[in-house]
């Protein structure tokens, strides 16, 4: 039983991260119908932004909650700016084109970030920039405290992650369904050109969507790096794919879908590795996904849109 609960805790902790990253995919997809392939790498940049800020503040000497807050907000701001820049220079010129075109530039941006961060250092320092391929230690933003209720190990990091992630999701849910901006977003998602005719500034909606999605990726990155403190330029590769899978699984373009998809993927991976065969972990996660998709082709929460000629 203890083991079962421990798996539950672990699975939730991984699942919330997938969910946070999946939200970024799903929001961008919702408004642009574009798979933002570079999203996983924005997540990676978030981790490094956090690292540089922590170094600047001297978090490793004396961690404090205030500094942790600065690191967190700083990384989110940097990534939001990066997301906006990517949208402006790589995606906007191609918006009227076939969707696959933008996908290729997305892949290009993804490679550029991954391999750009692996280049030899230009600015020297304790952690140079670019950091190179060697893994770097991410200083703990605040002191770690472990709890052990019923023999299940939980740390304050797990709790903070969960609280922050759920908080973000609720905030997002509120933004999308209760605010004017959210209404504009949904309108753009439904039909961008008609939304434009209705007086919605489509470009601004898209820019903000990118900023929000990228900010969430940065938040996820800091939450992960705080408790799993080894970061490298290819950090975003696996979580990026898995979060994408989670987003599609939940019905891409759907906010609740991304959350539920992320949690289910995290938990199913955890239980597959814990009780079945760990070496088939990724394979089984994908097999599960395929079965669900064949059963519900639009994902768990996706809406089937009637097709007209």
């Amino acid at each position: 039983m203890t083991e079962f609960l421990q798996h539950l805790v672990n699975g939730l902790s991984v699942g919330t991260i997938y969910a946070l990253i999946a939200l970024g995919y799903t929001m961008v997809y919702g408004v642009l119908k574009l798979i933002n392939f570079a999203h996983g790498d924005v997540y990676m940049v978030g981790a490094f932004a956090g690292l540089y800020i922590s170094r600047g503040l001297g978090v490793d000497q004396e961690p404090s909650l205030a500094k942790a807050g600065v690191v967190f907000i700083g990384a989110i701001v940097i990534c939001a700016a990066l997301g906006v820049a990517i949208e402006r220079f790589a995606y906007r010129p191609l918006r009227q084109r076939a969707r696959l075109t933008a996908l290729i530039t997305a892949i290009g941006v993804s490679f550029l970030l991954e391999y750009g961060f692996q280049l030899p250092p230009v600015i020297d320092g304790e952690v140079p920039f670019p950091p190179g391929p060697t893994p770097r230690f991410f200083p703990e933003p605040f002191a770690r405290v472990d709890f052990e209720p019923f023999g299940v190990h939980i740390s304050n990091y797990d709790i903070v992650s969960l609280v922050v992630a759920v908080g973000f999701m609720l905030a997002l849910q509120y933004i999308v369904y209760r605010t004017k901006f959210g209404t504009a977003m949904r309108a753009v998602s439904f039909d961008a050109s008609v939304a434009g005719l209705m007086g919605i500034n489509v470009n601004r909606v898209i820019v903000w969507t990118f900023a929000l999605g990228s900010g969430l990726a940065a938040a996820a990155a800091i939450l992960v790096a705080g408790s799993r403190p080894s970061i490298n330029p290819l950090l975003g590769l696996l979580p990026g794919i898995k979060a994408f899978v989670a987003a599609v699984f939940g019905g891409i373009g759907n906010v609740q879908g991304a959350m539920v998809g992320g949690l289910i993927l995290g938990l199913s991976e955890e239980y597959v590795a814990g009780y079945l065969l760990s070496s088939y972990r990724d394979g089984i996660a994908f097999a599960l996904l395929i079965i669900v998709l064949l059963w519900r082709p639009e994902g768990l929460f996706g809406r089937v849109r009637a097709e007209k000629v």
Partner: protein
Amino acid sequence: MDLPKIILRSAVPLLIGIPILWIFQGAVGGPGGTETAMAVILMMAGINVILAVSLNVVNGFTGQFSIGHAGFMAVGAYTAAKITVATNSLEIVGIPTAVSDQLIFLFAMVAGMAMAALMGLLVGMPSLRLRGDYLAIVTLGFNEIIRVLIENTEFLGQATGISGLPKRTNILWVGIAVIVTIAMAKRLLGSTHGRALLAIREDEVAAEAMGVDTTGYKVRAFVISSAFAGLAGALLVHQIQLCTPRSFTFIKSIEVVVMVVLGGMGSVTGSVVAALVLSFALEGLRDVQQYRMVMYSVLLIALMLTRPTGIFGTREIWDMIPKLRKKVSS
């Protein structure tokens, strides 16, 4: 057109191509069974051409979005590798060893294609009713499942893979495979079958309303594409004499998708040119080590921004020159 004529037209490229390849083989091959770098690079580029053109059948002609091409490559590669390794010491009675080896290799390639096609059918049948990104996820998932299965199967050598494959791939084989692939794609595009695929790409609902069996055509396109991916896989592993799951990661699939989109969706010559451009560009950049992939990604972004429909769009190379177009079409 009657059957003999069709066969003749399909055979013409091979009849012209093989002697040229033969001469070429002599020209770029090094002495005593060694290979010059140019020969190896050409073979790798050729394999990429096969991959790009075959994926174009699904992604370009039919407008479906598959990103699991490397999975089918793996199926073809492992099938062929198992056959050539098992028969390495055997030979067909009554013919010289060299000929027998090549015949066995041919058989292995065909078997690899068949196995990949079968896998394409198994994956395609249920999943092709999914659209767009959902299909992408299924193919990506299939790619990963294949890799996980190989890594866990002792018979397939797990992570180390199958080593000690005989050296069989050469310029001639790659060249023939490239010609066959391109001829297949061109013949397919010109046929009723190809028209149906294009109709599906342009508007699936309309195509269905016109009486096109959309699922059937999509599955067939998928099977053909998978078979040629298997061929490319078989050629690749008999070039490097090693078959490991590391050659068939989803990154490889992505690389092929990039070639297809860069060349222009649905343009056969576009795929060929893009595969060649990217293969040679990457090779030329090998010297710059860490900067290589950075320059590659910048090239990719710049090309897509300046030519959003790919190098050729949906057109072929001869469509670009009005005079030539008249000749080809007449």
